[in-house]
């Protein structure tokens, strides 16, 4: 019974968009669906927006428990909760023409603290690429060999030094041209097939979702 209700809602929301696409717009039914689409779209947008509270509740529950039980690292949890509510307060306040201090604190929290933190976390990757380049990247098969040679040309084609090198070796093409050729011929065709494979996969998955043919692991557990 539960499974049937879920499949009905899934099917209806999907079939609406399929019908709207298939029926030509000059037919009566097609025009009606087209009129309804913005309101359906806005409703789905609002429903999707409600999901944001779930993440917050999950995080709050976990860290509040750590805080009250004084488990190890409770000060980190306190910092997390304070920065969450502080950021939310300043961002919402910003819309109701806040005093200058609030905008300053919002910029401080968002532009200086949050952005710099995020960039730095990801900039660590440059170090890992370099250490992996020395310790992990080996030509261990034909595949890896082909990939490394192409990567060599593409990387040299990205930097101005590449063209100096091409002139020095008196190659007929500059490395930037060779990079653009690799990118727009072989890489283009390969990525086009990967894109096609992804969309054919989502077509198959979409049809199975609409008709409820998927084995639903979560539901089966308590279904």
């Amino acid at each position, binding site marked *: 019974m539960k499974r049937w209700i879920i499949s009905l809602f899934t099917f209806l929301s999907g079939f609406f968009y399929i019908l709207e*696409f*298939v029926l*030509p*717009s000059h037919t009566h039914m097609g025009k009606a669906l*087209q009129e309804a689409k913005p309101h359906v779209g806005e409703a789905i947008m609002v429903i999707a927006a409600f999901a944001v509270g779930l993440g917050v509740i999950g995080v709050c529950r976990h860290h509040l428990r750590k805080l009250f039980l004084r488990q190890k690292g409770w000060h980190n949890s306190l910092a997390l909760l304070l920065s969450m509510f502080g950021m939310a307060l300043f961002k919402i306040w910003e819309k109701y023409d806040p005093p200058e201090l609030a905008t300053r604190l919002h910029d401080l929290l968002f532009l200086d603290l949050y952005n710099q933190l995020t960039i730095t*976390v*990801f900039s*660590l*990757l440059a170090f*890992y*690429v370099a*250490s*992996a380049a020395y*310790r*992990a*990247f*080996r030509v*261990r098969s034909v*595949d*890896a060999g082909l*990939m*490394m040679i192409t*990567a060599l040309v593409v990387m040299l084609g990205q930097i101005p030094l590449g063209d100096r090198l091409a002139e020095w070796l008196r190659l007929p093409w500059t490395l930037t041209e060779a990079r653009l050729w690799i990118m727009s011929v072989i890489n283009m065709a390969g990525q086009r097939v*990967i894109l*096609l*494979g*992804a969309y*054919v*996969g989502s*077509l*198959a*998955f979409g*049809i*199975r979702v609409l*008709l409820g*043919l*998927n*084995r639903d*692991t*979560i539901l089966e*557990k308590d279904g």
Partner: protein
Amino acid sequence: MTDAPIQVLLLFLVLSVSLLLFIYLARRGQRIELRRIAGLESMDEAVGRATELGRPVLFTTGLEPLNSVTTLAAIAALTRVCRVCAKYNTRLIVTLAEADVYTLVKDACQQICAEEGKPELYREEDIYFLSTMQFSYASGTAGIMQREQVGAAFFFGAFAAESLILSEAGNQIGAIQVAATTSSYQIPFFVASCDYTLIGEELFASSAYLTRDPSQLGSLLGQDLAKIAILILVVAGSTLATLWSVLGPEATWVEALLSGLLGGVLL
């Protein structure tokens, strides 16, 4: 609203109906044979080699939670590795990044060890739920690989920038590494640093191969048919385009054929 030409709608109808037909046939027990997936043999060989050296095996399922198709396919591969480890009496370590995946994997491993008749082989403390934060999860897994000196490492599922940290740690301790991911931005790094890499949809094909789930097998055949249809379209379109450019614009029959191919949207 540009309405889609009838040819395209027909193509969609044929592909959808054939997909449902394949799923129906698969459910009715029709045997569907898949091609040899090299990654799966290397999986068994890797566990075998780790057993010879007497070193444990590590499996990790990536960052995404249980509702992602990629994680479900990774768990299917994990059940296979767990069964092979139980058969060879090898210790299996699993590191995870999501709580719901952790609970599912714990029950699955316990059940498999019991099925293989070795319930004592299942050790709860070998299954780690490290952290949902990308880099803590990656450095935690790398640390465990280093400490336990694992013999084989499997990276199945959705990975992001941290794939480097994992494969580099595996390389350091000389472990055989098999990777499978759909995120095509990480495949180059896995190909460069792992012994074998399954590319994109091969992960789903291996999951269908291992679980023999009829809807996955049927859907795989349906997707194959769609790809073959696109292949035929490309070949037909290219030959017609060549004919048109050779015979010049006055060959109207070629132009009629070409525009008939996809409903007047061409050239």
